[in-house]
């Protein structure tokens, strides 16, 4: 039977093993993010034809939409990691959840900034209290709350566990906010890309968008691995494996 998958996951959750694993894969993730990002930018900014209504202004979606997806995706990862951290008390899950928060917050921030740059040209205003904009802003506040709560404890692990609980509350809250602000006010356009069924967007525009999505994902992995490695070193600073790494580096 496929017994090796749980075994492998179990081993991976040990800090020294994950430290080495992340160190091995991080350069590849960075390289993949860079290559795909450049290809997607070239495809989006040069190859894709201008939109018949919005001209060249629409090209900001090649940044905006992947970042918006990532802002939710990272929150989902953070929520799952928080759940694992609270239920099974796995140290690695705490670190992953807390390392995800600043990355997700930056993606949310980029989404808001690019969105308002586009809104200034298309809607004639930098900001409007539309449903999606408001929920994205609330998402940013959720991220900031998690980060702030995590750092307000002196004990790192306790801070991480408390913030993980807040992240779980946030996961319940996101759909409620989404529903309530939709009921309140909506201006944002509907989705044009669907996983199932035909998308209402031209193929020459969709491939750079999807490439950029993969690029942002691998950037997230690279950044997450880097942050997790440093956090693990700081958290385990008294342990033997950290001392060995430090001694090896001092010798080299």
């Amino acid at each position: 039977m496929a017994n090796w998958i749980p075994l492998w996951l179990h081993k991976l959750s040990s800090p020294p093993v994950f430290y080495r694993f992340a160190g091995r894969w991080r350069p590849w993730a960075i390289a993949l993010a860079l290559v795909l990002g450049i290809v997607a930018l070239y495809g989006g900014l040069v190859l894709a034809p201008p939109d018949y209504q919005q001209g060249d202004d629409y090209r900001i979606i090649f940044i905006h939409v992947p970042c918006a997806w990532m802002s939710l995706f990272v929150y989902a990862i953070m929520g799952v990691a928080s759940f694992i951290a609270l239920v099974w008390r796995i140290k690695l899950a705490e670190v992953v959840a807390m390392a995800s928060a600043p990355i997700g917050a930056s993606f949310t921030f980029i989404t808001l900034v690019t969105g308002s740059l586009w809104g200034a040209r298309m809607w004639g205003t930098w900001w409007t209290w539309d449903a999606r904009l408001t929920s994205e802003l609330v998402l940013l506040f959720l991220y900031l709350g998690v980060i702030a709560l995590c750092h307000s404890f002196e004990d790192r692990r306790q801070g991480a566990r408390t913030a993980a609980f807040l992240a779980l509350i946030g996961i319940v809250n996101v759909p409620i906010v989404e529903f309530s602000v939709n009921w309140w006010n909506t201006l944002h356009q509907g989705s044009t890309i669907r996983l199932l069924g035909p998308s209402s967007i031209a193929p020459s525009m969709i491939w750079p968008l999807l490439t950029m999505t993969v690029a942002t994902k691998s950037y997230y992995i690279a950044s997450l691995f880097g942050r997790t490695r440093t956090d693990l070193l700081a958290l385990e600073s008294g342990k033997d494996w950290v001392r060995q790494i430090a001694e090896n580096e001092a010798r080299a």
Partner: protein
Amino acid sequence: MAVLRRDLTLAWRQRGDMALPVLYALIVTSLFPFALGPEDALLRRIAGGVVLVTVLLAMLLAMDAMFRSDIEDGSLEQLMLAPQPLALMLGMKILAHWLATAVPLIVIAPLLAGMLHLPTPVMPVLLLALLLATPLLSLLGGVLVALTAGTRRSGMLLALMLLPLCVPVVIFAAGALAAAQEGLPWIAPIAWLGAALVLAVVLAPLACATALRIALDS
């Protein structure tokens, strides 16, 4: 029940603290006409929302103190060790806090609304919305206060954490007020608030107990 009686007695012994949020709400509301100009039509239009947000801010001001004294003198740890279910006792503490801070605010809300010329027919809707929204905020706030129990500075942090949670509450309460002001049926958003309150009454004390155990677990 003993927890409830003890907390209410404590609150009553320090009546000055109870008056503080009320004074705060009074001051904030009286600043609005100065800032926006004293035209009746404008004030009438914003009155409901202003009273709602003011009450919310006043509650936030008092929320920080919900478990403060109990953490300082160690009685919260005693509660956590007690054989009775922690969630039930925390629920009682939240109820006591709501009675001590929110009820005076609700009592004074018609005065605040009157200062801003809220039309009289809307007044019952305002009171109903506040009656449902303030316990909801107390319960949500209780969970967050429990999370920050282990930290020293928590005022600004609490505001940052509460904002995403109170967005839906404000939207529905203000939605009911706006509908009532335009003479439309306002029962739907009130019903939503009521449903959320029922859910929170059941779940929030449990979440509060879990949060407290995590935050003080060391």
